[in-house]
């Protein structure tokens, strides 16, 4: 998957940025899993969040999506505090897809028929006059399996369905939490292709991944985390060529210390 060109100047869904996170703490059982984190994202395109296991990447993603309540600190999207209204303009694809015990098309219909999504119009990139559900299934290559039970699909297919469902809400922000972990190369390629298209449509994409090659393929900018804090927030080019911190250098070279990995 080749890296796409710059994001469009005027996002078609409206600009959800900046994302401003200030003095954010998330504490569980006396441990600060997010430890006074500050973050500001102002540019569209794809932001990749990286860091070792337990660095707090997935928790950060859930916090900025409003699925978790911070212990303290503030999260603002476009100047507004995170809440149901903001969450409605976002979609999160989980590492393990959570699918209803229904067919592929019924999983999509469930989201399309939600009251808040019925008024949303989705541009048809193929211009073939297909129903919205069919458009999305075609986009992720599952149209021929629309009547199959979702849980009988392969892991890659389930994740593609989860991505189609996420896109059914016409999100301004697409969040992916290690969505391609342990998938086959074909599925990864399809998902990355769709993510890049979303970027071109003006969707802000934030991806958590451990896959360095994927990060290099997709990232416009990188947020690097360790022990619940952000150590680097810079352009992808800078991060991969001249990381500022020793921890990031160790992470990129695969030499992250045992202590760092476990303590974070």
């Amino acid at each position, binding site marked *: 998957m080749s890296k796409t060109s710059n994001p469009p100047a005027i996002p078609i869904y409206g600009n959800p940025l900046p994302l401003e996170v200030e003095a954010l703490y998330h504490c569980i059982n006396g441990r600060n899993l997010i430890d006074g984190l500050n973050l500001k994202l102002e540019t569209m395109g794809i932001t990749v969040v990286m860091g070792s296991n337990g660095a707090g990447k997935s928790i950060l993603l859930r916090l900025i*999506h409003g*699925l978790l309540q911070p212990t303290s600190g503030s999260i603002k999207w476009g100047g507004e505090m995170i809440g*149901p209204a903001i*969450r*409605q303009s976002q*979609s*999160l694809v*989980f590492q393990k897809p*959570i699918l*209803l*015990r*229904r*067919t592929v098309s019924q999983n999509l219909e*469930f*989201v399309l028929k*939600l*009251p*808040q999504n019925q008024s949303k119009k989705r541009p048809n990139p193929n211009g073939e006059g297909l129903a919205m559900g069919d458009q999305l299934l075609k986009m992720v290559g599952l149209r021929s399996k629309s*009547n*199959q*039970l979702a849980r*009988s699909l392969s892991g890659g297919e389930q994740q593609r369905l989860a991505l189609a469902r996420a896109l059914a*809400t016409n999100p301004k922000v697409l969040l992916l939490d290690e969505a391609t972990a342990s998938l086959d190369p074909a599925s990864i390629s399809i998902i990355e292709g769709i993510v890049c298209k979303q970027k071109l449509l003006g969707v802000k994409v934030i991806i958590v991944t451990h896959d360095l090659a994927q990060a290099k393929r997709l990232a416009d900018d990188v947020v690097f985390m360790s022990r619940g804090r952000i150590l680097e927030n810079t352009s992808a080019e800078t991060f991969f060529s001249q990381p500022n911190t020793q921890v990031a250098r160790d992470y990129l070279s695969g030499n992250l210390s045992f202590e760092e990995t476990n303590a974070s």
Partner: protein
Amino acid sequence: MQDILQSLVLAVNLVFSGDSDLFEIIGLSLRVSFSAVVCSVVLGLPLGSLMAVGNFRGRQSLMIVLNSLMGLPPVVVGLVVYLFLSRSGPLGWMELLYTPTAMIIAQVVLITPIIAALSQEILSQLYEEYDEQFRSLNVPRWIAVRALLWDARFNLVTVSLAGFGRAVAEVGAVMIVGGNIDHLTRVMTTAIALETSKGNLALALALGLILITISLIVNASLFFVKIRSEQHARSQ
């Protein structure tokens, strides 16, 4: 052994003789128990759903109470319903005592906690699985409940069967509020109790075998309906 064989022959003879009294008793048993299950499902599923997805004060206490009520002694339920429906009771004006309706009420009191508690257990597990996705998608609470009920429908049929099993086999409560009146409130279980007390053990056992057979047929039918529905869903 001789008694059991004799009872088996008697049971077969009873069924094939077309004894109208027997079929009246069987019919009433099924009518009362099915009505009770339907009422309990109508009451128990919303209650189970509320406890599965609701986050209200007293939820834990309600769950403890419901779980405790699952083991309600039928005789006590019968007695309480009797007190409510007796002429001097608060619902005495309805004149329901010693009617099939009173028996249905007693069975509803007995099996609604079972259906509510078991459905709560099933729906809670499913909700735990769906919760994060539902919150991410901003799924309204009532749509979430509807989705849970639909996706758990096959398991909920099993819950209803458990309720039916309890209702159709129940004797204490229906004896007290129904009175075991011939041609009016006599059901299989009360007839068995009566025949046993009269010393007609073979007849009592024969009625018992018929009751077990009916219960098996109903459960097997619903089980096959469930299997067929699941197969249909998979083959779509």
